[in-house]
């Protein structure tokens, strides 16, 4: 396990007048993965989005997870909407006939 949860902050020049936020704990990988969909759907508050991205900035594993999550959604759509299988393909004549007959019985 090498995924950083609270990696050491990068060295910063001392700023006496700026509040030190670099020690604030990072959200965990679990929280990031739980909120991937909400992040992609733009449903996080600005503060949540900031914390989410602050974690991503130091966690390549969660960046990979986010990218592969997006790839999964894209692959699913592509697989089920294959252009080689036209959505408006021919309707089997037998089905047209069955629908016609069923409609007459329905009437």
């Amino acid at each position, binding site marked *: 396990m090498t995924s950083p949860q609270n990696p050491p902050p990068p060295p910063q020049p001392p700023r006496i007048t700026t509040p030190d936020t670099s020690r604030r704990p990072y959200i*965990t990988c679990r929280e990031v993965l739980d909120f991937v969909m909400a992040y992609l759907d733009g449903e996080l508050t600005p503060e949540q989005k900031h914390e989410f991205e602050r974690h991503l900035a130091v966690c390549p594993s969660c960046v990979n997870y986010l990218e592969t999550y997006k790839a999964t959604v894209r692959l699913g759509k592509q697989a089920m909407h294959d252009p080689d299988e036209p*959505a408006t393909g021919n309707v089997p004549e037998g089905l047209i006939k069955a*629908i016609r007959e069923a409609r007459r019985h*329905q009437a």
Partner: protein
Amino acid sequence: MGLAGNTLVLMTALPSPPSQGQDASEALLLGRLREGDDAAFDELVRLAGGRMLAVARRMLHREEDAQDAVQEAFLSAFKSLDRFDGRSQLTTWLHRITVNCCLMRMRSQRRRGGPERSIDDLLPTFLSDGHQTRNTAPWQPDAASGIERTEVRDLVREKIDELPEAYRVVLLLRDIEEISTEETATALGLSVNAVKTRLHRARQALRTLLEPHFVARETP
């Protein structure tokens, strides 16, 4: 795990799908349908049947079931023509009815094969401190290099079919049929939050199933 919800609401009672307006030829066809013109019914079947069959084939596995669902959808639509308010396209309305007929058919069928895999086995795992149990590796840049496109398609379909049914159906409705969260919730008798949770877990589970096939090979 079966589909949730005890009552399946007829699509005609669901909120209207996003309006794209009716074109003139569709309005003419609708007029002929409402007058009971036999040729117009055949025309509608030929016009919309292919798309409806594609939807049914995505949701149901057997061709016979898919064709039966499309037939049911047309008969349901014919009975409800007076209730079609024209705020959406006729084909969009038929799409929703087809999805509903497929859902009813899915609910009445037991999933073929053995017991389903637990969704928990397909979700990411964490250590007690919240770290991922193992690091996530990147996938190939195009997520498919070295594999024929049709192979990728078949692989992804196979993995979608491996999802537990309650999750597969939400993924199909939301990601594939692009039905809104609210409509999906109504159709399945779930809360909006439950639909969101199931969709997220379904995507995570599908990601887990696809990972071994797409993870980038380490360069020597």
